[in-house]
């Protein structure tokens, strides 16, 4: 059955509402979980601020500049967590055999998987990322390091960041069709690169810089374009690169997913 984009949006809207209703069954728990998610991300930024308060710069990047990187990665992560977190939970579908149920649904399997859950507790993290990144960007505009139009560019950049994260998570999940147990892989395909992307990539050893520009291209979620916008290096291509990189990463990950799906063996449960 051919689906129109509007069908996907309608389903997404429905899931968002039902996710919110589900969470609201336990209001206090929803509130506490949301607050602690925000606090846990905020603490990362406080640590960063403590380091920069003492040493002033990290490889020439000051607090406002790093705040922009931090905000971009946080919002990308927030969008990913809100919409695509089930990719990170794919192992449990393989182990329990729940993936069989997704295979028989009249939707593309990746969408069927993402549609299983929309986690609204991640909204706080998203807003917090916007607040920190936005504050840093406005500060940079005021002191003339960044032009006003750059703010519009930075506001949409997390879409590419989130797409890159979806691609990386999908690629990692696709490995599960052969390996089944994949939870531990996310540590170095997602969590470590996300932490690394919050800081200027130039501080890392060559092998790590290479990985962050190619296999796990998180450098394009913030560092590459912001580095150019702040006049620290790069060229016009640095601004355009995140989009083709995100599209290519998504395409490759989806090809791997479809290939892997042919190797899927149900647990029979």
């Amino acid at each position, binding site marked *: 059955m051919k689906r129109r984009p509007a069908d996907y949006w309608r389903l997404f809207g429905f899931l968002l509402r039902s996710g919110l209703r589900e969470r609201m069954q336990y209001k*206090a728990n929803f509130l506490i979980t949301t607050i*602690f998610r925000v606090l*846990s991300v905020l603490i990362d930024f406080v*640590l960063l601020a*403590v380091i920069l308060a003492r040493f002033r710069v990290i490889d020439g990047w000051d607090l406002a500049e790093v705040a922009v990187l931090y905000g971009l990665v946080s919002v990308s992560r927030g969008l990913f967590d809100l919409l695509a977190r089930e990719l990170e939970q794919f192992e449990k579908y393989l182990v329990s055999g729940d993936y069989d149920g997704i295979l028989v649904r009249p939707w593309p399997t990746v969408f069927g998987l993402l549609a299983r859950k929309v986690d609204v507790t991640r909204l706080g993290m998203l807003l917090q990322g916007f607040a920190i990144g936005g504050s840093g960007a406005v500060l940079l505009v005021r002191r003339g390091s960044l032009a006003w139009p750059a703010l519009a560019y930075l506001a949409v950049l997390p879409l590419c960041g989130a797409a890159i994260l979806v691609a990386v998570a999908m690629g990692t999940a696709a490995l599960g069709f052969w390996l089944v147990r994949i939870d531990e*892989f996310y*540590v*170095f395909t997602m*969590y470590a690169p996300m932490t690394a992307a919050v800081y200027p990539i130039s501080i*890392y050893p060559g092998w790590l810089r290479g990985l962050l520009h190619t296999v796990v291209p998180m450098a394009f979620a913030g560092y590459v374009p912001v580095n150019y916008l702040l006049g620290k290096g790069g060229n016009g291509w640095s601004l355009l690169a995140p989009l083709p990189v995100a599209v290519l990463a998504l395409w490759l990950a989806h090809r791997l997913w479809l290939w892997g799906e042919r190797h899927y063996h149900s647990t029979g449960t």
Partner: protein
Amino acid sequence: MSKSARMFRFYHTAARMSARANLQYRGQHMINNIGSAVFGFIFIAIWRSVASGPVTHNGYDSATLTQYIVLCQCLMWITLFDQSGIQLARRVRDGSIGADLLRPVGFMGLQLAGMYGKRLYNLVFRSLTLAGIFWLTVGLLPPAPANLWLLVPGWLLAMHTGIIITYLIGLVGFWTVEANWMYLATQSLTFMLGGASIPLDFMPAALKAVALASPFPCLAYYPATLYLGTGGVPEVIKLALWAVGLTVLATLLTWRARRRAEVVGG
């Protein structure tokens, strides 16, 4: 055989079974170790970038900071990274805790024995393996000779404090729907107030005072300073006080939790 000997044997078996259960996943844990090492390399790169050269900052130079980060990365596998608390809270939620409460041994002892088994497994297959990776890549110096006699009791107390905190996270499940938020909070607070990613000596005075008044430095800062030689007997005393205090608190809360437990269904 006396009652206490039987109990000890039971707890010993529980710890052994827990360690053995984890052995089934050692291949995956090795993959995770590489991820943990990458995290270590990231933090080391950050510190080398800001504190490069032979200049010392609060008594730390670039090399000492590298050692500190390496130690914390290894330490946290025996003090912090354990989802047993979340699993315990989940058992409360789905009612399977009823079986644990009915066993003819202490509930708290049984849970702690399982966690000890897991931490001992982590010590060998996580901490020591990570230490090996770091030793081969960035180098790992031996512990300060003057502190050798303090290191074992200090690290054991740190591990015990971490286990009790994990257990307390699980106990939260008796009062709330889930305990994930508590686990998340503990991790974040250990990274900040525990000094897991930044030595407390670099913190502003007010924040450092808050950190030192909390139990979180027991999970990273105190044991790391014992290894580096910048800590000593006072750190071991603080570790012992927190270990005893939190154990008493956990015992009292276990008593309250048992009275509160209500298992529905079957």
